[in-house]
């Protein structure tokens, strides 16, 4: 097996894909987005919950199906969200996207995206970037709507 493939499917990613965090929608007053990857039919519905008093994001919850990369990425994303302001989350989504689109030249910033930096290997596989971005794009879309 190539080192690129080992890098793509790191143990932490396979673990998250098998036992994902943040799975299961809660409803209530959340911002929500549904995203589809039309090339493969993968889809996700994602909710962002925030503290009504402070405006701070409390959690991300999601439901969907797809490949190990998209499932792990949604799980890792849900670990990033709690405690962030909307501006901070936007910064982290932007940072993650730049790394994913870098064709292996830019590592995700672990201080910003935490364990999601393990998805670094995806950027060497341009066809898989959409898989890794699915949850993050859903969050971006949710943030664009009024809470």
């Amino acid at each position, binding site marked *: *097996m*190539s080192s*690129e*493939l080992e890098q*793509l*499917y790191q*143990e932490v990613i*396979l*673990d998250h894909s*098998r036992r994902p965090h943040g799975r299961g929608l809660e409803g209530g007053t959340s911002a929500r987005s549904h995203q589809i990857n039309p*090339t*493969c*039919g*993968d889809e996700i519905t994602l909710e962002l919950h925030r503290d009504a008093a402070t405006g701070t994001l409390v959690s991300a919850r999601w439901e969907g*199906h*797809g*490949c*190990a*990369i998209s499932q792990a990425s949604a799980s890792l994303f849900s670990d990033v969200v709690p405690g962030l302001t909307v501006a901070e989350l936007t910064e982290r989504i932007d940072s993650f996207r730049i790394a994913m689109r870098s064709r292996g030249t830019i590592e995700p910033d672990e201080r910003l995206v935490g364990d999601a930096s393990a998805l670094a290997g995806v950027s060497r*596989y341009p066809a*898989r970037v959409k*898989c890794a971005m699915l949850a993050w794009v859903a969050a971006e879309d949710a943030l664009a709507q009024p809470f």
Partner: protein
Amino acid sequence: MTITRTTREPLTAADLTSIRKDFPILSREVNGHPLAYLDSGATSHKPRVVLDVERAFLETENSAVHRGAHTLAAEATELFEDARARVARFIGARDDEVVWTSNATTAANLLAYAIGNAMPGSPFTLGPGDEIVATELEHHANLIPWQQLAARTGATFRYIPIDDDGALRLELLPEIITERTRILAFAHVSNVLGTIAPVAELVAAAHRVGALVVLDACQSAPHLPLNVTALDVDFAFFSGHKMLGPTGIGVLWGRRALLAELPPFLTGGSMITTVTMEKAEFLPPPQRFEAGTQPVSQAIALAAAIDYLEHWGLDRIAAHEHALGAAMVAGLHTIDGVRVLGAGSGAPRAGLAAFVLEGVHAHDLGQFLDDRGIAVRVGHHCAQPLHRRLGTTASTRASSYLYTTPGEVARLVEGVAAATTFFGRNG
């Protein structure tokens, strides 16, 4: 039609060696492994002779066809029309029944839009009360054009459902194909299941009620002997790029009498007789359906591809692929957690198999196989309703052609087995 009743022997190992030398791309490596290309159902590779013919045309005769009085124009026109005649002979049709399109999807849409353009009183006119029937296993290219035609005309769209094995539920034909049915469209060979449609039974049901039969021959024209006259269908379409030809060329075939009654879809240059500032009169078929500059070099190269296929023999190619399809299914069935879509081992199938590996998404499996130089298709293969009916959103499809070896099928099976270990670790 069946591919099990072949009268000639399949391709030999020596034939395969010879064939593979004709395809330059097959000698390349992918990720440090020899390429095992198992995605010919999506698009085929091209033998050197097809590339050479297209290049030679562009270097020596290239010119606009059906216009101009110069030598190059005359030579180009002759080659272009010879190519049409070559395609016609290949499918058992008349020369003037072959319409060039840019691909199969364009051919299906041309037909659907032309039917939709029929004026009141035309035999093609559709309206409320009329029904268009397809099947649940169709590729989107033979599904959406008919849904849309129904929506535009007020006709009703219906479909023949499939069972859990993906077989058409023929016992429902008497309820579905009725006096209201005007069009029945179906795939000759399923691009996902590899099953071969019971053409005679479907044609009989449609013709009994006076409905037109449209055959999606995308997965049959490249792989089986195809004779549209013997099959008694009314229209058929296929793509050049899936049968060793270039992209950008496709074929719509229709019975002469039907094409003659069919109004045009695209209008403009090269398809008219007399044009005034008020109106235009149109050429007879096939030119009526060929507005604008046509894919000339691609058509000529497609004729070369057909020569190449017929050199080896479609019956021998079909027998070769049938054996490969059977080996795929048998091999995949030895792996725990694999579900091959469609009929099980032993049932007739073309040289392809789509399957689901429990606990491993098709995209991850495809990536894993690519790392070993094995190219397969992953996703819904443009057949979402079929996948939904069979309880999955995506599958992995391996599809063969005349250049595919038993060794490549063995590598696929080994690769899938290795993937179950890799993705299952600590699982």
